[in-house]
């Protein structure tokens, strides 16, 4: 069994547990039984499970239903049908007027005054737009297989169905992405991983020297507010992100006004749950780590430790896990913290013998605990990598006795020998 298959098994188990705990089956059963008897349809079933003769017409209807409704060839027009667009053509908005591009699938890209861009690819799933300079507003209509991309300088923005404004200033090598709706994923030289930007968020990054300086990510009440108020954020450094005046379809004033009146405060827990681990750690530090360690529940602390580990801050993770252990044994969190300290030592620091110490601690306190199999396997690995071959052999034999078909069995057999 390989690692992903082992994970999949555990995920499926967890999922089944969550569903059972939620009571979904009982709720559905009550509603279905209350509606009985349900009469069968007297018409031919128009779904893909139709059997028997007479299939052809129904299958054709289903095929049309499944096939993308936008059967026309992908294309776009410039400036409200005055000019058919061409792939690769240089598009430049005048100094006073914006330039809208309307796409076959209902999507729209609007070049702000002075902006320059090119549409470099068009396919059934979407288009690729290269922003050479200036600001564009992008509204992508989401379909089953939507794949749009916007390139701004060295950055790629992957779009699935969203509305956002992006600006690229080549003279400063500065990128801004402000989301009105939906979410985009941005990749580029400023990070090792993609960055997700969600509705209401603004991402900014600028080249400084040989590196890239991420500017603080603002949780603005709405991207629209950032967009409209030209002086609202670092006015001395940013050009105003005003939306083009023709964009009546893009946004209405009402949601922006409402959002400006009710700023959303996102906690570090919510950021972590949304997968924004770097944001969660930043937010937690803003709130005060000492405060969280003093008042947070053990589960909250484990979440913070995990977020710190995923965000690449092993020191914070270690500090939080030790704090959980200091609260004393007697809860599942204590065991998880012990195990995670081992994993941290192994994965983040390469301190294998320290890792082995933690895995041994876990197995001593929780010999049949939920993480016993993992801890046993990792103990074998840690000792072997740490150079304690005799210890690794003992641990391997123990592992094979307890978990002969576990994910570390192959390693254990190799170490234990014949």
């Amino acid at each position, binding site marked *: 069994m390989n690692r992903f298959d082992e994970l999949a*098994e555990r995920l499926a188990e967890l999922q089944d547990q969550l*569903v059972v705990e939620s009571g979904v089956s009982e709720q559905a059963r009550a509603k279905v039984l209350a509606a009985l008897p349900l009469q069968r349809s007297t018409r031919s079933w128009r779904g893909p499970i139709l059997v028997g003769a007479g299939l052809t017409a129904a299958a054709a209807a289903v095929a049309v239903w499944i096939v993308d409704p936008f059967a026309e060839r992908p294309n776009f027009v410039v400036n409200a049908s005055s000019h058919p667009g061409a792939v690769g053509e240089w598009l430049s908005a005048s100094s006073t007027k914006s330039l809208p591009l309307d796409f076959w699938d209902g999507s729209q890209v609007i070049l702000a005054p002075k902006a320059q861009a090119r549409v470099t690819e068009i396919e059934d799933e979407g288009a690729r737009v290269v922003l050479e300079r200036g600001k564009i507003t992008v509204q992508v209509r989401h379909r089953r297989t939507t794949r749009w991309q916007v390139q701004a300088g060295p950055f790629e923005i992957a779009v699935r169905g969203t509305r956002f404004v992006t600006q690229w200033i080549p003279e400063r090598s500065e990128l801004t992405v402000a989301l009105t709706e939906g979410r985009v994923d941005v990749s580029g030289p400023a990070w090792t991983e993609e960055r997700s930007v969600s*509705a209401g968020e603004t991402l900014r990054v600028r080249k400084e020297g040989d590196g890239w300086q991420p500017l603080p990510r603002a949780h603005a009440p709405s991207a629209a507010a950032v967009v409209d108020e030209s002086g609202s954020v670092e006015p001395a450094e940013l050009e105003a992100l005003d939306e083009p005046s023709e964009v009546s379809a893009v946004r209405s004033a009402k949601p922006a006004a409402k959002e400006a009146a009710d700023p959303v405060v996102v906690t570090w827990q919510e950021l972590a749950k*949304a997968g924004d681990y770097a944001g969660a750690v930043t937010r937690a530090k803003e709130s005060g780590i000492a405060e969280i360690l003093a008042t947070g529940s053990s589960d909250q602390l484990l979440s913070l430790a995990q977020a710190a580990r995923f965000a690449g801050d092993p020191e914070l993770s270690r500090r939080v896990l030790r704090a959980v252990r200091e609260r004393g044994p007697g809860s599942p969190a204590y065991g998880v913290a012990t195990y995670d300290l081992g994993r941290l030592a192994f994965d983040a620091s390469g301190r294998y013998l320290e890792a082995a110490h933690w895995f041994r601690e876990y197995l001593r306190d929780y010999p049949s605990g939920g993480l016993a199999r993992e801890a046993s396997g990792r103990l074998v690995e840690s000792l072997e990598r740490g150079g304690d071959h005799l210890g690794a052999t003992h641990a391997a034999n123990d592992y094979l006795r307890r978990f002969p078909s576990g994910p570390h069995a192959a390693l254990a057999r190799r170490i234990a020998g014949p």
Partner: protein
Amino acid sequence: MNTNTVEVPRIVKSGVKAAPEPIRKPRRAPVTFVGDESALLEGLKRSEPGAQATFFDAYEPAVRRVLARILGMGDELCDALQECFFRAFRSIDAVEDPKALKSWAMRVAVNVALDQLRQRRRRRWLVLVGSDTWREPSVPTASNELRAVLRATYRVLDRLPDDERVVFALRRIDGMELADVARVCGVSLATVKRRLSRAEDRFFSLARRRPELVEWMNPEDYQ
């Protein structure tokens, strides 16, 4: 209600004819379905509530499993589960072989899941609705990390085309045999293999960028 009543005059002791008393013909006895799929199918085709209830109890776990694997944990799971059975009861005439009842129910589940995915995307056009809109119940034995990994897995799956997502979820997360995946998806084995290959390429390429998932990747999955 059709009781097939027949009026028959009664003669009482005094010799006076009494008012006729209706005689009710016995209704057909309820069909029992234990271990008898033919009888169950027969009862379903007659829209008998007992058969429909039995069908629900017998196949709900399998249907629920298919929905959960494809959709993840979302608020629409309960509605989707009901919809599967409503559709199944309405379209029961499509089933000829009683032994195919289970796989047919799972196939209905796949189609309902696909519809739900399409609806989700339409809702996302207006407001961000992720596959983690679910309010997780408390499962004390489940680690926070495993939950984070589960959420991350479905965030990655959200980025796959639906047909690839379905085969990946059923094969790699549920562990369903390829032939069964083909049967419940209503496509050939070759098509399933093709979709699975593309799905795996995409999934592992995206997953290796997620810190929650990267340590679970086998080296050969992303070389």
